[in-house]
């Protein structure tokens, strides 16, 4: 069946809006005054497509605006309809869990669109270079023309990423999941390599594409093993078959393990994270922010769906517990150590995002340990999803600040941040809030999410310690190893404070290389300030509670399945 029923249409209004936006970007900029003459008459009928474009449709800023409208509308409808539940066709299920992720993706895309408007700016009145122009002026004009030309491409691909991501969140079938991930991934490879005139951009895109494709191929191989095992790739079918199997079927076990490679690449887990820093630093900041937030969230949806949704045993330890626990500790430590030594703010943020993936994987490992109660499982999952949600604020916020710096062609060296506190107090202050939130300093949103995660792990494991023992060491010997995951998160957070504070240090202490204020990109500045404000507010007021309510309800529907 190809056509959707009315109910199904209602469920996926946000995706339809995105699709409409996508088609709109393809069509609307091509509208012109072309006319066709009816044969044998003198009547000219306008057919819109072709001819000279109208002034309104030839505006290079149009694609950005259309994308913005589509995304905001989609976000609005997705938000107002976030508790709707139902199947769409055979491969998609809409529920509040997928809607929460949809909101995360869309929020990240909106921020990306705002910053792209200034990072890859469209200028309305650029004339082709004249012979009389100086070399510099001519090359600037050419750059501006190139930027104008590729507005459409960029925004189509941006919407494609959004479409792929939001569909993958709804997928209830492994194959659908993979197709949607590939739609999003292939588009994001292009976005990374979008600045093909710079060598770094092309290299980053190529690297990201090759590593990503290999990871995907391995994942698809794993999926094919699962298909061999069960013959049915729907999540329900897989979960039922998994529960019915006594022990672990080797085919299925290997299949899941191989799929973890693909998903691990998406979330940036060690040792599959190596391409991430290159990709982040080569890509423009709006794209890097997207990779660090939405793309990571996408990886976690897939991991949660497969590990928790399919393979989590009712009681006892999941077979992947040890592996995920090890990977999580290695990931967070590696990420933090590498971030300590990197001088490029974008690479630092990339490594910090690797470390954050480690924190969230530690939460997953605690769930898989088999000692977590239902309440603790729910708490940890809530913490993970909440963390992914607030990451959009402060991780992307940091990339927004870098986007603003990139408008003057800088952001690849720590020196570019020097003296930002003198040049732009408000922007530097916001950046400092983002850094503190990434480090997890109370009362910011980053603390709340990390705190919930630690809380979940401790709640799950602390009861295993013997209460009778007098000395700390005696208690430590008896406590379940899962407890040490919480300690690992705490120690790593302490380690991470150094490189986050270093950003603050150079912003407020070093002398700036130039005293000129940055470009007056009003919407970008507003977005940065809004992100900083929300980072504070979500961490310390009941608004954070409302967001947590939405997330925990969503998690409840997921666990209930």
């Amino acid at each position: 069946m190809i056509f959707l029923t009315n109910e199904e249409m209602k469920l996926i209004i946000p995706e339809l809006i995105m699709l409409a936006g996508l088609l709109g970007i393809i069509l609307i900029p091509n509208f012109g005054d072309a006319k066709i003459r009816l044969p044998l008459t003198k009547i000219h009928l306008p057919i819109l497509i072709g001819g000279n474009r109208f002034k309104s449709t030839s505006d290079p800023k149009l694609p950005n605006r259309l994308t913005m409208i589509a995304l905001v509308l989609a976000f609005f409808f997705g938000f107002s309809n976030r508790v709707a539940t139902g199947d769409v066709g055979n491969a998609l299920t809409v529920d509040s869990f997928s809607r929460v992720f949809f909101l995360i993706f869309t929020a990240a895309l909106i921020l990306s669109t705002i910053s792209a408007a200034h990072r890859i700016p469209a200028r309305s009145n650029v004339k082709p270079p004249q012979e009389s122009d100086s070399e510099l002026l001519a090359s600037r004009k050419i750059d501006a023309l190139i930027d104008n030309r590729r507005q459409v491409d960029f925004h189509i691909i941006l919407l494609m990423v959004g479409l792929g991501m939001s569909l993958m969140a709804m997928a209830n079938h492994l194959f659908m999941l993979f197709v949607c991930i590939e739609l999003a991934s292939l588009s994001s490879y292009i976005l990374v390599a979008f600045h093909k005139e710079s060598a770094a951009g092309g290299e980053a895109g190529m690297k990201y594409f090759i590593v990503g494709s290999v990871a995907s191929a391995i994942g698809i191989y794993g999926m094919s093993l699962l298909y061999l095992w069960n013959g049915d790739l729907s999540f329900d079918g897989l979960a039922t078959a998994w529960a019915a199997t006594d022990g672990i079927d080797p085919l299925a076990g290997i299949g899941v393990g191989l799929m973890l490679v693909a998903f691990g690449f998406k979330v940036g887990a060690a040792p599959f994270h190596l391409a991430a820093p290159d990709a982040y630093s080569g890509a423009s900041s709006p794209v890097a922010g997207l990779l660090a937030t939405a793309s990571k969230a996408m990886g976690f949806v897939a991991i949660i769906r497969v590990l928790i949704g399919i393979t989590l045993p009712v009681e006892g330890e999941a077979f992947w517990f040890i592996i995920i626990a090890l990977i999580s500790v290695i990931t967070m430590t590696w990420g933090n150590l590498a971030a300590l030594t990197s001088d490029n703010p974008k690479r630092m943020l990339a490594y910090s995002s690797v470390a954050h993936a480690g924190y969230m994987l530690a939460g997953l490992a605690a769930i898989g340990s088999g000692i977590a109660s239902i309440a603790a499982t729910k708490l940890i999952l809530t913490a993970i999803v909440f963390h992914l949600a607030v990451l959009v604020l402060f991780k992307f916020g940091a990339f927004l600040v870098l986007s603003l710096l990139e408008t003057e062609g800088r952001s690849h060296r720590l020196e570019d941040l020097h003296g930002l506190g003198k040049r732009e107090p408000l922007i530097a202050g916001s950046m400092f809030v983002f850094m503190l939130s990434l480090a997890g300093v109370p009362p910011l949103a980053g603390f709340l999410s990390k705190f919930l995660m630690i809380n979940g792990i401790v709640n799950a494991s602390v009861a295993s310690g013997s209460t009778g023992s007098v000395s700390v060491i005696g208690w430590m010997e008896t406590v379940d190893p899962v407890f040490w995951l919480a300690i690992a998160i705490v120690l790593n957070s302490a380690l991470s404070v150094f490189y986050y504070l270093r950003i603050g240090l150079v912003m407020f202490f070093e002398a700036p290389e130039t005293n000129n204020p940055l470009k007056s990109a009003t919407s970008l500045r507003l977005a940065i300030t809004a992100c900083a404000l929300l980072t504070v507010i979500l961490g310390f007021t009941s608004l954070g509670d409302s967001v947590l309510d939405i997330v925990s309800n969503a998690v409840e529907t997921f666990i209930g399945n």
Partner: protein
Amino acid sequence: MIGTDPLTVLTLTPLFVGFGLLILPQLLPSKNAESIQKVSRNISFGVALGLFAFATYLSCKNFSGIDWLDISMGDYILTNEPTTLISSIGVSWIVGADALSLPMIWLTALLIPLSMLVEWDAKKGHLFHPLILIMEGALLGVFVALDLFVFYVFWELTLIPMFFLILVWGGDDRKYASMKFFIYTFTASVVMLIGILVMYFSTDGGASAGSLTGHHFDLIAMGAQETLIETEGLRHMVWLLLLIGFATKMPSVPVHTWLPDAHVQAPTAGSMLLAGVMLKMGAYGFLRIAVSLFPESTVIFIPLLVILGMTSLVYGAWVCVGQTNLKRMVAYSSVSHMGLIFLGIATMQPLGIAGALFMMFAHGLISPLLFAVAGAFKHHYHTLEIGSMRGIAHHSPYLAAHMMLGWMGSLGLPLLAGFVAEVAILIAFWMTFGWLVVLPALTLIITAMYYLSSMQRTIFESNDRHHGILPESLHGEDPTDVTWHENTGMFILGALTILFGILPFIFFDMMSDWSTKLLEDILVAALENQGVNP
């Protein structure tokens, strides 16, 4: 709201006004912004004065008719209806005061307008005075908050205005000093945070518990819980973690090194608040959380307290003798006096603890006076070197008078506030530790030594007003005496030092009642458990 929840009003007003005055000009067109900036100094000062009047009214109202002995540990006055802030993790807005915090609240409300007054002419006044107002909100928040999360947030919030006060208005080496200040205190409070988190995880449910986590940060409920942390070793560890956080703030040797640098570089108002109130946060938190919640650990670690206190006292005083920089000397004398607080607590006598509390208060009056004098010295003579100038009694008689009073108060002259605290602590120390009292008593002689010698070398040593030695930094200009606003500020501080020296019972009575209750309700049982005869 003001009637039912005065402490919330007291805390939030300066925060809102301060942030408003800082941010509003950024958002408005430049013409309106300038007109706001012109009045922001006056508004800040007016608000600070109003809050001081309000705090005085609150303290007066609660002096009369309250028998502090009726208020057991864990009961507070001026409390509010707890409001949930983050229900999912159990954070609530609970405020309250008792005999431990009320003097500190009054002291904070007093020092803020005075420090504004002393630096009335600060550069960038439209930023300076609102920042001090924010500082007031953060400090008051620390003293009134009864929820550990809120307490911690305010604790960290005090860093930010102080950091900028040092960084923007500080001396030549301000970058180094502000960075050192920030890193030291921030690291220490992160250690403290770990302790608080362990406490959080060991709370059992209750009305204020978080909907997702099942734990709470409520200090009162933590105190009411039978055993907060079941594993004894873990309890001691948490106590030590808390101690690291509090001792760094106080500061105690060996984590005191940020203080002299911060003080020397900070502007006068910053030094006054730093010494007057911020150091007391450490002692306050130590008594409020570590001693009240973990009495047994406190009893076990009495030797550690004695060692820390004694080292700070002796070392601080000894280092003072060798100082040539006025502010650095005063800073080390603060370290030395803070050592006495640990000693007072370690005595486990009502008199000793009350003496420690009064020391917090008296030092909060005297040390701002000392720093105001040192600041004025720097302002009018452009130097802080002791001995680079002599005979200021002739050139600046008012400054000399204030300096003399401050120095005398700090070295513990009878009838001044510092004396009461020192004598109370020393008597209690003698009652508990016997002849060990000789050491702190002798240290007071060292204190007298460095204060008197610095006084002699700056105020006197020249009877001829035309032949006093003037520092080179004046470049031959005539020195000026303090301005009227500096004079007013110092005069009030000096007068209060005398007032509380003659009439200490205004606050001393409630402090000794609080100490008695602390011992009766909490510490005696712990002492008996440990086999110590109380």
